[in-house]
């Protein structure tokens, strides 16, 4: 039994029907409901035989046209068994996902990025602001219905001036 299979077997024993295995083989991909997400991640992090102590990545995928629309993926890395596991959770538009930034500090920025790019709100995140785009940016660029060239690319940039000052650019 390789370590990916061990991980899946352990998860099955602990959570049973609460998760579905999407891909076995060299790298496991499991899907969980968002109610049990934190439980599953905490189990993976703290189980003595697994110790997926590092969050390598956290990102979202927009499956435009499918319901629920978004997938949030957590790529965990174990320094102990030298194995990666991908945990996915699905969320509809405007639906929130519980934060894991208290479990891994790395998730704080990564969740901000997922929020910035896809507009997925993370519950109880300490500081959910845009991170790469400007704060007053309109829209979520990595959504599939967002045009690649952006909105209003053919119009002149807005110039924000101090209050009361005449708008010389216009």
């Amino acid at each position, binding site marked *: 039994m390789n370590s990916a299979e061990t991980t899946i077997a352990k998860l099955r024993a602990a959570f049973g029907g609460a998760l579905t295995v999407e891909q076995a083989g060299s790298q496991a991909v499991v899907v969980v409901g968002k109610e049990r997400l934190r439980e599953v991640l905490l189990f993976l992090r703290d189980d003595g035989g697994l110790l997926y102590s*590092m969050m390598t990545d956290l990102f979202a995928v927009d499956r435009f046209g499918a319901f629920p629309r978004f997938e949030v993926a957590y790529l965990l890395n174990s*320094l102990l068994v030298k194995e990666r596991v991908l945990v996915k959770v699905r969320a509809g538009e405007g639906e929130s996902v519980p934060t894991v930034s208290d479990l891994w500090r790395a998730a704080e920025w990564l969740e901000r990025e997922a929020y910035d790019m896809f507009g997925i709100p993370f519950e109880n995140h300490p500081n959910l602001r845009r991170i790469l*785009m400007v704060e007053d940016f309109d829209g979520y660029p990595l959504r599939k219905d967002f045009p690649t060239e952006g909105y209003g690319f053919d119009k002149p940039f807005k110039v924000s001036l101090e209050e009361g000052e005449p708008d010389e650019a216009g």
Partner: protein
Amino acid sequence: MADEKKYMTINMGPQHPATHGVLRILLELDGEIIVKATPFIGYLHRGVEKLAEARTYHQALTLTDRLDYTNGLSNNLAYCLACENLCGIDVPKRGRYLRVILAELQRIAAHLIWIGTHALDIGAMTLLFYAFRERETILDMLETVTGARLTPSFIRIGGLAKDVPPEFPGAVKAFVQDFPRRVDEYETLLTENIIWRKRTRNIARLSKEDAVSYGVTGPVLRASGVYYDVRKAYPYSSYEDFGFEIPMGERGDVFDRYDVRVREMRQSNRIIGQAIERLPDGPVNADVPSIVPPAKEDVEHDIAALIRHFKLMEEGFRPPVGEAYGAVESPKGELGFYLVSDGTNKPFRFRIRPPSFINLGSVPKMIEGQMVADVIAAIGSVDIVLGEIDR
């Protein structure tokens, strides 16, 4: 009055030479001590992940050069590994060895930029000239192979753009012979230098637990005493064939990060030496005509190859529906690409796992309670490239 302490707020950046790009850090200061630091990023955001979704798999390769622009070949390699995992392609031994040589040369070049600019930030200017001298030698070699200095796009899906020219192995061997002496030179300037030690020892420390929790990778993680290197943990491109050590630190301070990188350069040199000695003959590209374009000579003489080349460049290829992760140990840390394919010729999701972005997340933790001047040492020691952070 005592509990109504007022902190001074200053902006470091976005235009500050020591931030190595356009990074702004908002510092709250109590005298000269940092109470809180908040980085602001995104000034260089070009939307690479979005742009790649509108390009075929072959075309998206050119975007990867422009992430961490000191390190084009490792970026190419990480992306190609993800594509190869997605399509199930196996690159021949010669292709793999050449990839290792190129990636390790690029690692040394990237570390040389780092050591030069980091020392310059702290006030040791001489080293910059020494480091850039050797970097120039490497870039000359890379130029003879790839035709470019900064954005090679040379490592392609399924292998390389072409085989290396016959003079390349000789040039590499000469470099491998000469380089350890050069590293000694850098070390005489810094390692025992008392000013350098005072500026770097016990500055901007990051504990083992914090390093893991912040997801930090690369030399910063190893300086904190965590043994993790993608080349050892998940060997790719035949790294398991070579003998090399992973340099480790103990205290996780600026000096340890310096020390880890310097020793890492020596190890990279060792890997290159072994790879060039044992470089096998044979093809560099995988024999998968539906994905790997034909050799340039064939395109010039063979109509079938010309058509295949045109089809692949124009339409690209269609990988099976699925998803795959490919990662390399870039000079900055674990650089990964997560590709989601929906069966069309363009990636459905092109996720970059940027090491600099995640490493920068730990900087506020490092510099809390330190002096303003140490911020510069801390940023330099993490070795960030804003092109990769902002994407």
